């Protein structure tokens, strides 16, 4: 496989770091792949631009940062403004259409999806936005199987919340099929 370098960005508390951990864990524990996940953050627990880097590959990964990601997800305008220029030419830029206004064209496939709106419309719980985002990423990149993500969700998430997370994952996958690009 090709080395898949991803950056998920948003606001602190949106769960982009958790989403990255779930994705990387699925790759390592259930698909026998290598993955490295790291994050940069400031002192605050909520707010501020959060960024997490995930690299998934079938060989040992040494440098742990994705300085030029193939896949970049921006869930807020602040994160978009800060990071959109780092996308690797030919890569995939995923944004939430409610929160991010695309300012400039980049040399990448740009996918704007109403992830937040759909989550609020169907599940009505903003906490699963990150899992919806994972559904989009996995459907568009096929970097891991959705079943592997489900296994990780089952292991990590309290039983009472598993349903809405599963729904969010499916919602994201369905949403990716109708994305405006």
């Amino acid at each position, binding site marked *: 496989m090709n080395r898949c370098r991803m950056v998920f960005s948003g606001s602190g508390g949106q769960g982009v770091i958790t989403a990255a*951990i779930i994705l*990387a*864990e699925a790759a*390592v*524990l*259930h698909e026998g792949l*290598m*993955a*490295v*996940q*790291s*994050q*940069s*953050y*400031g*002192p605050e627990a909520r707010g501020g631009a959060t960024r997490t880097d995930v690299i998934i590959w079938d060989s040992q*990964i*040494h*440098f*742990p*940062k994705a*300085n030029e990601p193939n896949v970049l997800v921006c869930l807020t305008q602040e994160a978009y403004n800060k990071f959109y220029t780092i996308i690797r030419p030919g890569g995939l830029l995923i944004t939430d259409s409610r929160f991010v206004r695309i300012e400039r064209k980049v040399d990448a496939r740009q996918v704007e999806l109403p992830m937040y709106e759909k989550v609020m419309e169907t599940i009505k719980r903003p906490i699963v936005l990150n899992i919806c985002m994972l559904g989009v990423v996995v459907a568009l990149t096929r970097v891991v199987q959705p079943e592997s993500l489900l296994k990780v969700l089952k292991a990590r998430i309290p039983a009472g919340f598993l349903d809405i997370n599963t729904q969010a994952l499916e919602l994201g996958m369905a949403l990716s099929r109708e994305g405006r690009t």
Partner: protein
Amino acid sequence: MKDNIKFVQGNEACVEGALYAGLDFFAGYPITPSTEIAEHLSYRLPQSGGKFIQMEDEIASMCAIIGASLTGHKVMTATSGPGFSLMQEALGYAIMTEIPCVIVDVQRGGPSTGLPTSVSQGDVNQARWGAHGDHAVIALTASNHQDIFAITVEAFNLAETYRTPVILLFDEVTGHMRERLVVPEEGEIPLVGRLRTSVPEGVDYHPYLPREDGRLPMSDFGGVHRYNVTGLFHDMWGFPSNNPGVVQGLLRHLMDKINNNAHQIARYNEYFVEDAQVLLISYGSAARSALHVVQNRRPRGERVGLLELQTLWPFPVDLVRERCRAPEIVMVVEMNMGQVLQAVKLGVDDPEKVFLANRIDGSLITPTDIRNILRVIQGKGV
């Protein structure tokens, strides 16, 4: 999925290694970026009958582990630069009193409170010279989670073997990033237990009377033997002494037991060193970027190799001198102003061919940084 495959932070790999080595007492005060070590041990240790104490500060943490070790436990504390500064006095005490313990310093930017959430490798010389007076220390590091696990086990083994504090110098990048860890089976890595005295109850025990091999068997404090422990220079009974012969003998012993075994304490990894024209010397997270460069440039015909140091102190000077002989350029890759660079320059035959590739802005040095600096040194321009 096998149970022993984990996807964890480096700090958790350290915790797993410590538990594997037999850690049963931890005292600490949380500080970024080491906090996850305390956090995980706060629920892992009680599960296995161990003790976890959150202390009021780092001074107390260090003192608590020294006391617990003396009573027969395998002990550890974890901190970052600012807390490590506070531990120096008690660290010197543990060196003087020869009490095994493991201190983890997950490095962040300094001096002072510096950059709490950013990476640095600025505590290398603090580990060496933070405590006052002549002394020898063991300081180890690692660049990936498998090695963090193994080197943590090694730290406990060396602490018991040499009756000395061992410092683990990790950093924010390896501490916080997640990657795969395969936890070894029980028995896969040999463990060194406490060497206890065979002197029976009721017979005088001399806590500081070395055996013929130089090792000092211990007796659990508060157990069957009564003895004295002091940070003053002391005789074989453990009582203070300013007898010049006793003072000289003890200081020589403290230095020699570490320095004379430097080759046995040296841990390192080598990649394409044999025919290297350019030798990179690195450690910790910086070594990941250096290894990326090596693996990236070799297929393009560039003869670049990497010597990754895991033992920083005692500095493996014989190894470094030998490996630096053939290469035309030696470049030390680290995230400080040249702390290991100085040790390399002191050790090699021709220090003028040794250069520094560093980054000190709180960001992990990148493979591109290393390549650009190398090109400039080679006169190729960026």
